[in-house]
């Protein structure tokens, strides 16, 4: 009896070992100057499943599959945590790998600037920006503030500063909050929350006066008549919300965009970068992308590849550094 169990145990270990080594063998793809890709393409999402970056990655993958845009499968790997730094550290350890990519959102640019981690987006090979997200300033439907002017007047008159809410400290929401305060000459008491859902809950519950949110974070409440947007951070009004003024046209001189894109492993071969750019270019031209991603999330369509994308990242990094320095949160 006893011996039989041993035999079984050894068999299980043996097959398990085979499976493991089998998997290991596949990763060692030979690098030749032929067609890209040579093996499965890995797209790291350094945020949790279900979030904005995850939805973008899964949408890209779905479009690639439906339209046969790539000869090899794409695998999406969620490596959440550390404000994006953990997934980035994983990609940093794969220099030159032609099949390893990672999604980028603006938060990953601002985080290292405030001393919350060392890995910068500029350490990777830029591939492309595929969309831009914007910031809305939102109030409850029954709020006394009908316009931005009401809000600014109330903020100036208030004894205790009005409370604004957004996601995390030194985040895009926080930076945008500081930019408005400077432009309007007001003070807002910024309360950091753990996610977009929590921000909206606290706004609807009356625990904060105004909230910063991406359109995708507050659309249900705006359309359902629970909340109203006062202004948007773009240069021109949103196509889908033609009645919503921009901060700039109201005389608060600032604009704010969050970029969404993809970077490759450090020192990625040029051929792989080009290959991925071509795939993404085809993705953003599909109707599904325009309708189910850009319009559904009220994003601004934009496509910047290669050097243009690098320039956009560097420019955003500078703007963020400046804003964070003004807020006293910039750390070298």
């Amino acid at each position, binding site marked *: 009896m006893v011996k039989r169990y041993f035999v079984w145990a050894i068999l299980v270990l043996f097959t398990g070992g085979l499976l493991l080594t089998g998997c290991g063998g596949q990763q060692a793809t030979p690098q030749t100057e032929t067609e890209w890709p040579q093996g499965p393409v890995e797209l790291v999402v350094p945020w949790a499943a279900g979030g904005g970056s995850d939805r973008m990655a899964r949408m890209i993958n779905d479009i690639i599959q439906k339209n046969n845009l790539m000869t090899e499968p794409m695998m999406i790997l969620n490596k959440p945590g550390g404000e994006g730094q953990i997934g980035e550290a994983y990609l940093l350890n794969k220099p030159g790998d032609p099949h390893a990519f990672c999604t980028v959102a603006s938060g990953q640019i601002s985080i290292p600037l405030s001393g919350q981690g060392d890995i910068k987006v500029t350490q990777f090979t830029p591939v492309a920006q595929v969309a831009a997200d914007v910031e809305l300033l939102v109030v409850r439907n029954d709020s006394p503030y009908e316009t931005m002017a009401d809000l600014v007047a109330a903020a100036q008159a208030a004894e205790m500063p009005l409370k604004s809410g957004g996601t995390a*400290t030194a985040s895009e929401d926080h930076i945008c909050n500081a930019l408005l305060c400077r432009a309007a000459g007001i003070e807002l008491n910024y*309360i950091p929350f753990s996610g977009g859902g929590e921000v909206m809950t606290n706004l609807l519950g009356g625990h904060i006066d105004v909230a910063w949110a991406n359109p995708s974070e507050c659309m249900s409440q705006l359309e*359902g008549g629970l909340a109203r947007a006062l202004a948007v951070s773009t240069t021109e009004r949103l196509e889908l919300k033609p009645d919503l003024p921009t901060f700039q046209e109201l005389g608060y001189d600032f604009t704010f965009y969050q970029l969404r894109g993809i970077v490759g492993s450090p020192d990625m071969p040029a051929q792989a970068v080009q290959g991925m750019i071509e795939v993404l270019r085809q993705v953003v031209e599909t109707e599904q992308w325009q309708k189910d991603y850009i319009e559904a999330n009220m994003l601004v369509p934009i496509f910047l590849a290669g050097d243009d994308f690098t320039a956009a990242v560097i420019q955003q990094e500078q703007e963020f550094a400046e804003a964070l320095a003004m807020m006293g949160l910039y750390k070298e």
Partner: protein
Amino acid sequence: MMETFGNLLMGFSIALSPVNLLFAALGVVLGTIIGALPGIGSVTGVAVLLPITFGMDPTAAIIMLCGIYYGAMYGGTISSVLINTPGDAATVMTTIDGHQMARQGRAGPAFAVSATGSFVAGTFGVLMLTLAGPALAKWGLQFGPPEFFALMVLAILSLAGLAGSSPVKGIIMGALGLMLSTVGLDIVHGTLRFTYGSVQMMNGIDFLPVAIGMFGMGEVLVQMEKMERFDLLETKFRLRDLLPTAQDWVRSRWAIVRGTLIGFVIGVLPGAGATIASFLAYATEKRCSRHPEEFGRGAIEGVAGPESANNAASAGALVPMMTLGIPGSGTTAVLLGAFMMYGLQPGPLLFKNHPDFAWALIASMYIGNIMLVVLNTAFIPTFVSVLRMPQTIMMPGILVLTVVGAYSLSNSMADVWIMIIFGVIGYLVKVYGYPLAPLIIGLVLGPLTEVNLARSLMMSQGSFAIFMERPLSMVLLLASLVAIIIPLARQLMGRQRSHSGVSA
């Protein structure tokens, strides 16, 4: 009222179509399996299976995804009871008494009571969603940072009673949990604490790998020491032992009711969730029980309460999601994403613009809960037969599951190392008779307490008066005061009585 009933009937007519029934069944079966596998919880399960549903009929797809969500709450019990490894974050409390029951040959009753409690709780939750969704969601919104802080204080103080035989050992473990919870990125101030330059440590120490290590791996190490010969776990497998006795039902009856109510209320609050609901239900049961000494040694109320609570909470979390469009938990956030991918905007307009979809989904949850209770009762003999496996096969198997489970949390080896380190700590802690639960509780409640205290003080610009100015937080804080005074007063009075007894 009549309108609601009519809508629900329409919902049933859609949900009972063969295709939707098939996907509801598929969802709940997948959910049970995903829940039973340690580590992979409903968040990962729904997120990973979401892309597979692309191109499906939206109603069928969302019915399936929701099935996975509440199905996982049933399934989590299986690994907690059988192998002492929580299958899901919300089943950590079930592990404590559930596995002890299994060791005493009473895994069958544990499953039966848990399936029944889950069914009662799940159905109650859906019923409340049907009847009073919007009103409940509005009530939940009253909970801001000060109220959450007060609720956490109440939770910590009522859970302090869980310490077990030695209060000192319990406090040591609880304090250790709170201290460990400070590791990582502090989101309020954006500073790094105790990370020592390591990117992996920015995440802090997540409680799930700790729980999997301390309960699952720790137990394996303890058992290995005892394993002198290759023997079977001494369990009886007569059919009679698979069913709960009349006394089991009497004892768990009110535990199910209390667990359901606590779970649902906590679930409706945005951001609290099933894990905290199960903690509070366990603490309540220990306080209400006539046999508090049996807790930790296989008390059936300790399974019935938390299991009902986590199911009621998962249904409760759907209330703010469907009526306000706000996710109340990690999984509902993913579900919200799924709704949006199908162009369905959850929130006030969902019932107006897509009533057929909304009511079909609600109807499918009644059906899914019936499927789950049948499934989880019918397969009890199969689940229990896992215990027939010889220890020499079972223990290495559990080790493999704990490692895979820890890795699957966020595809990271760091979680595996945390799991292994806490596995060894769990072994030492068990050998020296320290309780495990307070450490886990400290780890979960610590960050929530801290972050909500910080936010409250930011809101009031540093004034502690904010906690007393708001009625809800004041009531909760007064309740926590009572929670410490009563046991202390009882102890004092007991001492006086024994003193006078001695002198007389």
